[in-house]
């Protein structure tokens, strides 16, 4: 019985089916808001679904320079990781199912979609894809440092607990350090999503989508689906860790949707109002601007702990 339950959770709700549907809807929100910012009308609600289905029906091209099997398998790795993350996050939020250290598992698994993009790009044997992959890796190095420091702040605020349920019970955002850390993590999420100003790895106008340049048909579809799922999963991660989690009971439903839409729109607005930075600018931004801020938040949290001031 337990097996069936786990499989249901993974495949249907809150795993694959649920995450991909909400993810594709979120990507519609992204496209619609972007269109409105640019004074366009924007696509209909189901456009992301049409796009995905259409990609399934397209021909798959495989570059002669690449490693065929790895090239085709790479999109699936990222897809599996994001499904697993989403399942873990939602089970922690809804069913209070948690295990010690699931925060660390989630942090590690969240790197895997980027890893899949890099491996796929490198396996294509295309030099532009290689450049994109190397930028993606440098971007990971850049944002991972402030990201981890902010998580340390969160863990400190939650009495050294590394389980998502315990962290979600703590409203980390109700303190100065929590707000600062949350804002820093929002930038990291922007980079994790590969959204402007941190879309250096894809850089359509410069290296023609970088790692995705050789992808077509189903494999590109799986990548696009993974990105849509990330667009849903990462804000949920933010809500769980900083904003007290999700409670789908009574007013909690409205509250959860409000939190999610607020974060989503914030990310989209940042995306649409900024130019793309160079990779060295991105690394400098994360290491020399955001990291000190993250450290400051951590120090505030430590001071708050020492002098027993909960709002610090």
């Amino acid at each position, binding site marked *: 019985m337990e097996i069936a339950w*786990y*499989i249901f959770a*993974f*495949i249907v709700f809150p795993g694959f089916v649920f995450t991909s549907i909400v993810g594709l809807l979120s990507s519609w929100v992204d496209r619609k808001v972007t269109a409105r910012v640019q004074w366009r009308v924007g696509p209909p609600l189901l456009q992301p679904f049409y796009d995905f289905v259409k*990609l*399934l*029906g*397209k*021909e*798959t*091209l*495989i*570059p*002669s*320079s690449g*490693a065929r099997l790895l090239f*085709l398998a790479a999109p*699936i790795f990222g897809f*599996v990781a994001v*499904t*697993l993350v989403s399942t873990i996050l939602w089970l922690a939020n809804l069913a209070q199912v948690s*295990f*010690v*250290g699931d925060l*660390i*598992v989630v*942090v*590690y698994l969240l*790197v*895997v979609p980027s*890893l899949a993009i890099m*491996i796929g790009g*490198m396996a*294509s*044997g*295309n*030099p*532009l894809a*290689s*450049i994109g*992959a*190397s930028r993606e*890796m*440098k971007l990971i*190095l850049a944002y*991972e*440092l402030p990201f*981890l420091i902010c998580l*340390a702040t969160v863990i*400190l605020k939650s009495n050294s607990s*590394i389980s998502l349920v315990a962290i979600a019970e703590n409203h980390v955002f109700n303190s100065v350090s929590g707000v600062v850390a949350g804002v820093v993590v929002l930038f990291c999420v922007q980079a994790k999503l590969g959204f402007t100003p941190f879309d250096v790895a894809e850089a359509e106008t410069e290296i*023609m989508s970088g790692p995705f*340049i050789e992808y077509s*048909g189903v494999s590109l*579809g*799986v990548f696009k689906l993974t990105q849509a799922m990330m667009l849903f999963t990462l804000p949920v991660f933010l809500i769980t860790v900083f904003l007290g989690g999700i409670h789908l009971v009574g007013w909690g439903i409205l509250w959860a949707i409000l939190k999610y839409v607020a974060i989503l729109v914030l990310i989209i607005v940042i995306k649409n109002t900024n130019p793309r930075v160079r990779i*060295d600018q991105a690394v400098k931004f994360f*290491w*020399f601007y955001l990291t000190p801020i993250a450290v400051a938040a951590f120090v505030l949290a*430590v001071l708050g702990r020492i002098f027993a001031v909960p709002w610090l």
Partner: protein
Amino acid sequence: MFVNLLLIPVLLPLAVGLFTFILPKKDRWFRAILTLVTSIVAFASAIWIYIEKSLELRFSLLAIGNFTLSFDLAPTPLSSFILIFATGFGLLISLYSLGYITGRNRVREYYAFFLFALGGSSGVLLADHFLVFLIFWEVVTVSLYFLVTVGGAESKAGASKTFAMLGGGDGCLLLGIGIVWFLNGSFTISNLNIPFGGVLPVIAFILMMIGAITKAGSMPFHSWIPAASEAAPASVMALLPASLDKLLGIYLLIMLTTRIFVLTSGLGLLLMIIGAVTILAAVMMAMVQHDLPKLLSYHAVSQVGYMLLGIGTMNPIGIAGGLFHMLNNSIYKNCLFLCAGAVERKTGTNDLSELGGLVKVMPITFIACLVSALAISGVPPFNGFVSKWLVYQGVLETGMKASFIFLVAAMFGSALTLASFIKVIYSVFLGTRTQKTAKVKKDVGFGMALPMIVLALLSLGFGIYYRFPLNFFVYPGAGVQAVIPGIWNSTWATGLIILGLAVGFIIYLLGKYRKSARVVDPFIGGEKLEQETGRVIGTHFYDTIKEMPVLKGTYTAQGKGHLDPYTWIGGLGLGITGFLKRIHNGLLSWYLSWSLLGILILIVLFTLLK
């Protein structure tokens, strides 16, 4: 039984090693097979020792008052499980050597010292007398020196550096043992239990710790590993710095922290600081290397940091994590060096900028390398993730505010490790073929492939079924009960991952992939891809990072050797010898006046002391 079981893994390799050393040069297969058979016997006896548990061999050789020398062998749960892995790695590498080392120069020395190193390691692990321990410890050091020199003329500098640094560490260990004997009056390891009171135990601990971490290759005494890697055969790097030296160094360290001394938290913190610095600094160095074995050797340094971090926490979870990480690290690092050896054997080069595109012709090596690379980067569900995760929990368990700094350092170290291995995977196996790699037609033979496959499978298996190594080896070895609360359900997660892969596969089937997958030329804006000029060289991946402020200066200083204690102590030694050289000017009157001065000082000292 006519021979004590404990003697087999120790004396058999030493005896056979001596035998192969005096064997005529021509007989090359016999030598290799003999080594393989010896390793098999040693491995089998190690398993037997583990099963038998309470074995002991005490054979007194000499006793002068308090000073005793006796050939005592007594396995503990810790040493008998490490022995299984030490001899197991010996077995795999002797199999690998069949294909790798054959046809090289100095095969005679290679096999002889290979066996000496194996026997010496078994001796270290089983010894219950500190002097016997030290003798076998030295056997391993000396064997490593000779094994590195098998690499040919270029390996001389690296071998000397290795020997000098390890010798220095061993000297510290000897001093520490002396102090312990002075304090406790006994050399028997199982009898020792020294509480910290006064200065001497602290000095003894620090001296012996230096010996242990030099062997394991932690900062600041790490620089022998990269130096040795420059020209040593890959199988030697895989056997000693990647596996046996780690096992022995960490074995000694765990004995020091858990059994011989009663540690104070200050010294634990010192270990944790060394560990965190080692993780970050070594992996930053690894990222910018161009030479594959050298890059791997910096990772061999960096991974020690996690073990020190775990052991330094001094709580059961942390120590178990450190010990498990030692085991995991020797598995995947061994595999990575073997992969590097396979690539070098096939292409004749170690330079990352000359490699590329090997995935099509060397698929087995590629998969083994990819699995190990993911394992060392701590990607779930491989073994590196589980042990790192135990270490993180141990770090948080200490409850110190500083523990968060260690946590961030360790986790960021993982990201840097991943970055470094992305570069390796790309430069060696992906990307486009180069002149050197274009001539490779097929993967390495069975003898070289099998050890890599076994090690890669172990990495995966220990990641999924981590309960098995933890319950059978790590918990009894660390002397802790199964205290780890709510560990992640790796079997379930793996099941779900496989399920997810199946879903992905179904999506592919839903799509048009089956009917039409067309192979086309890569698209680079309409240009034609030239093999040599159109290549993105992986060694340039992290030039952006190298150019960052602060880091740039550090890299330059490191490149000049300013941050290496070997250079400092070497400079000091040169200064002293330079001074002595100047004194030796050949004038008799000078020598006479020096002697007179010496006699005067002696007389003054004697009168004062009387």
